[in-house]
């Protein structure tokens, strides 16, 4: 009997763990997109007055997303290099998100102030929308995935026995 209860508890824990991982993935994406939106705002604020280089602005920018921090470091390394090739690592990002982020970093500094501001406004819209959707998804499915994972694990454990 103890063994059976242990197996059920184990399956429930594995299910809940899987749900927790999914919840973390939603939150990680949300943190990344929030960071990108904050980064764009910071760039726009700086360009409208100080006009420091993008690398300098991003160098002083802090974010809670480790992946975004990595992408920023890659951009800074690119701006200091003589090679002129920008490589933005994908990490956990989906193909679509990665393409948009690569486009954003690739567009930094390529034009004069007004054009750069217009470009950043456009990116702000795109990433703002993605962030809203990610927030909604995280809120809707984040806690739910843990619960569903737990129940699914429990069900599997019962069926297994």
């Amino acid at each position, binding site marked *: 009997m103890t063994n059976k209860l242990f197996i059920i508890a184990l399956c429930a824990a594995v299910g809940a763990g899987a749900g927790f991982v999914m919840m973390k993935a939603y939150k990680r994406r949300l943190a990344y997109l929030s960071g990108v939106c904050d980064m764009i705002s910071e760039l726009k604020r700086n360009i409208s007055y100080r*006009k420091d*280089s*993008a690398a300098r602005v991003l160098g002083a920018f802090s974010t809670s997303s480790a992946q975004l921090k990595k992408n920023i470091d890659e951009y800074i390394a690119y701006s200091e290099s003589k090679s002129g090739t920008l490589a933005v690592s994908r990490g956990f990002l989906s193909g679509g998100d990665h393409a948009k982020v690569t486009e954003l970093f690739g567009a930094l500094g390529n034009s004069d102030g007004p054009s750069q501001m217009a470009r950043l406004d456009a990116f702000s819209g795109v990433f703002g929308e993605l962030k809203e959707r990610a927030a909604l998804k995280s809120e809707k499915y984040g806690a739910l995935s843990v619960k569903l994972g737990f129940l699914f694990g429990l069900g599997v454990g019962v069926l297994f026995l």
Partner: protein
Amino acid sequence: MKDFYKLIPDKLAEVISSRLAFDKISEIRIRNACPVRIGYDGTYYYLCRNGLTKDSSSAFVAADGEAENIVMRACERSLYTVTDTLRRGYIAVTGGIRIGVCGSGVVSIDGTPTLKNFSSVNIRLPHQVLGCAAGVHAGLLSSGLCNVLLISPPGAGKTTVLRDLCRLISDRGTNVLLCDERYEIASAGNGAPTLDVGACTDIMSGMDKREVFEIGIASMRPDVIMTDELYSRDIDALCRAVHCGIFVIATVHARNVADFKAKPEYADIIHKKIFARYVEISDAPLRSGRITEAFGNDE
């Protein structure tokens, strides 16, 4: 030095750092797909694997698009940081380096002309020659300030003389407002000068002279305003400053005093006797900055 090496291709940087004396370099001219020229110790050479050469066939040839690469490195890959100066044909880099830029003209949507398709760059390095203006200072200004115009053709060293004169005047306790329109005199970066322009010098960098004359007089109450490269458009602002009782020390492009006086755009300055003294700086190549003659207004 580090700022300079960051701009140029590695192969050029290696040769310069290993075979040349950095403080003898005045400028390096890089034209797309052409041999690289360097101004070194008062003479022009081509840059080659062994250092300097007069033979263009053995010189390093700049890559196609090298000028654009240099421009992008100079602005840390953020063109919007330099568009204001780029439309005036140059980029100011930290460390007092100034890059003259050539390319095709283009008019932006708001009607402002600027450059695209960069074809060549001239990277000019600042040099401070402490004491080079001691003669002018002793001869003209030791008994008191007066309005002085330094006259020389481009490249003769008038900015170097002006910088040293600024240092000498400022270190004697005179409040100097330095109008460094092209970041060449004080080479200020992040709010601090990288060259010695004196302890009592306030610096306005990157602003139009006319604005500095107006704003600076009202807000900083200087004893003397010093500025580089006067043009005819600056004359009204200059006259107003002088009439406010502020001394002005400036430079102008001309071969000599006679050449300056022959230019109709400066007739007003001469007629109004704005400057009490003219100083000619010799037309030596690159950065000699030797003062040859000083004239009073009536001579």
